[in-house]
């Protein structure tokens, strides 16, 4: 068979979102790949130049609908840096709890998408079931299930209801109880290991040079988690560990992601225990001037928001660094030499979210 180009997308079960991965195949082996992005481009950066600082927060939520809170938080963090304000201690803890709940929910959504990728539709239903409980907790916290609009420049929107800690711990206990299920269903399954082990190898040097971040980088034996590397909020005060795997294949990325969920549960428990009382919000200055950037560990990698204010109602320029956009550069490198069936597993472990990629 001669080489043929196949369009995997924009409407294809492999693409979790709207993008087109053109692959050139020789038989079943991928020779070349070219991701074509932009089907979901909404011009977020341009929209930000027309909106005032408060109205950008719900807009940032919509960058990634699976992990929306991390994005609005990244924006708030950058804006606070630019305005030079320090938020109260309790707000920091609240943010950490919300962020970690969101991270677990996002990872569960990834697991739900990854299951069908390797052909296990049952995992989708199980992961979605667990995710509902975490969305419940986010709803209890902020009032909305998906686009929470919870962080504010200078704090958070509202305090948690009094029954929150109790209910949250209940959910975490429930989730811990399900750990065995996932281990049996995925980690202990020989076919799952066959599909993921040794597939999609990315070396540490390549990963760093390609600008890959997040779980993909940590799966390649590079223990960079911005929560400890460039600490924000109160992550350095809590007791948890950065998850790393050495091999750089799909199974490493899978283990990093799943272990991060349990680590996040640990962070939430610690934060609930240590959370002080006090105010949750300070007043941000109006019409700030200056420029700042902050990077945070998004659910998928390094999110960097670079914001320039020129003393107006709205920022002069706001730039979003999307982790998946950068990771997408590594896709052709990883894919080379693999088969079409491996493509799914590789794209699955990279955890594509087109909302943030196309901005």
């Amino acid at each position: 068979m001669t080489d043929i180009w196949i369009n995997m997308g924009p409407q294809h079960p492999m693409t979790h979102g709207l993008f087109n991965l053109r692959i050139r195949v020789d038989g079943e082996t991928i020779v070349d790949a070219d991701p074509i992005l932009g089907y979901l481009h909404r011009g977020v950066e341009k929209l930000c130049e027309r909106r005032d600082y408060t109205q950008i927060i719900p807009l940032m939520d919509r960058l990634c609908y699976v992990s929306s809170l991390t994005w609005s938080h990244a924006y708030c963090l950058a804006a606070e840096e630019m305005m030079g304000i320090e938020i109260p201690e309790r707000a920091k803890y609240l943010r950490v709890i919300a962020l970690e709940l969101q991270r677990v929910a996002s990872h569960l959504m990834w697991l739900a998408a990854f299951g069908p990728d390797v052909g296990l539709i049952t995992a989708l239903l199980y992961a979605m079931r667990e995710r509902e409980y975490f969305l419940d907790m986010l709803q209890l916290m902020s009032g909305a299930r998906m686009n929470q609009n919870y962080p504010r420049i200078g704090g958070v929107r509202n305090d948690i209801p009094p029954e929150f800690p109790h209910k949250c711990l209940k959910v975490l206990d429930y989730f811990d109880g399900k750990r065995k299920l996932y281990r049996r269903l995925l980690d202990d399954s020989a076919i799952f290991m066959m599909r993921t082990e040794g597939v999609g190898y990315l070396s540490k040097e390549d990963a760093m040079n390609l600008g890959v971040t997040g779980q993909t980088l940590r799966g390649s034996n590079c223990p960079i988690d911005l929560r400890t590397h460039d600490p924000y909020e109160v992550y350095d005060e809590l007791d948890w560990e950065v998850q790393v795997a050495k091999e750089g294949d799909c199974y490493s990325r899978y283990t990093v992601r799943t272990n991060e969920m349990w680590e996040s549960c640990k962070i939430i428990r610690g934060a609930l225990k240590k959370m002080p009382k006090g105010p949750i919000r300070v007043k941000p200055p109006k019409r700030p001037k200056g420029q700042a950037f902050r990077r945070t560990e998004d659910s998928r990698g390094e999110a960097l928001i670079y914001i320039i204010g020129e003393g107006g109602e709205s920022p002069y320029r706001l730039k979003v660094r999307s982790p998946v956009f950068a990771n997408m550069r590594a896709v052709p490198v990883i894919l080379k030499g693999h088969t079409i069936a491996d493509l799914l597993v590789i794209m699955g472990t990279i955890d594509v979210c087109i909302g943030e990629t196309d901005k």
Partner: protein
Amino acid sequence: MAKAKRRSPGVKGWVIQPLRATFRETMSALLKPETILYPYESKEERDELRKYFRGQHRIDWLKCIGCQLCSRVCPNDCITMEKVKVGEDYQEPSRSEMDEKKNVVLRPGVNIGRCLFCGNCSEYCPTGAWVHTSVVELADFSRDALVFTAEQLKIEGKPTKELKNRIEENPKLDEETCIGCKRCARECPTRCIVMIPGKKMRKDKPIENPKFDYSICIGCGTCAEICPSDSLTMEEI
């Protein structure tokens, strides 16, 4: 390629372990599946959570002062202010409404079709008139049915005198350009403006300048917007 020593799934991993996992779930699901029959059944735990949900809005007409702040902070411009006629017991509307048409107040209506339920309206409301209910079943067959008028969103609670300036801005006067037209004092929803004679003279009479009572100003910016000579600017407290 780096081949590390990993825990091998072994013979059990071929089918037994996954089958065990799913078997347990099947057994627990046989009697009580996780899913519910949505319109007929509901889960108690979820129902408890719904009281914190940011669903459809309701506006407490007795608390609302018609300041239009909600429509100003709304990211999607889905709030429109409507003039409605009300009874005597309503909190006083702004002076301009009182002068021209008796008992006419401004109350917000919401186009749910554009609303993104961000909650900015209830957050910035100076009197807490905006309330979120847990109603989420708002889908309809036509777009017109999604436009809720002020009357449809009306509830009547307790009136309040408490005002909070959540915008954290106050108007500031440039006396040089003020022409003393009194429009700001008329339009102010909280009546925090009184007109006092200023320094500048016109036809041997002092021009009346606005004086602000910042303790009850809510920073809505109506005065700055309405000013014909642009002599009012909103400044941070």
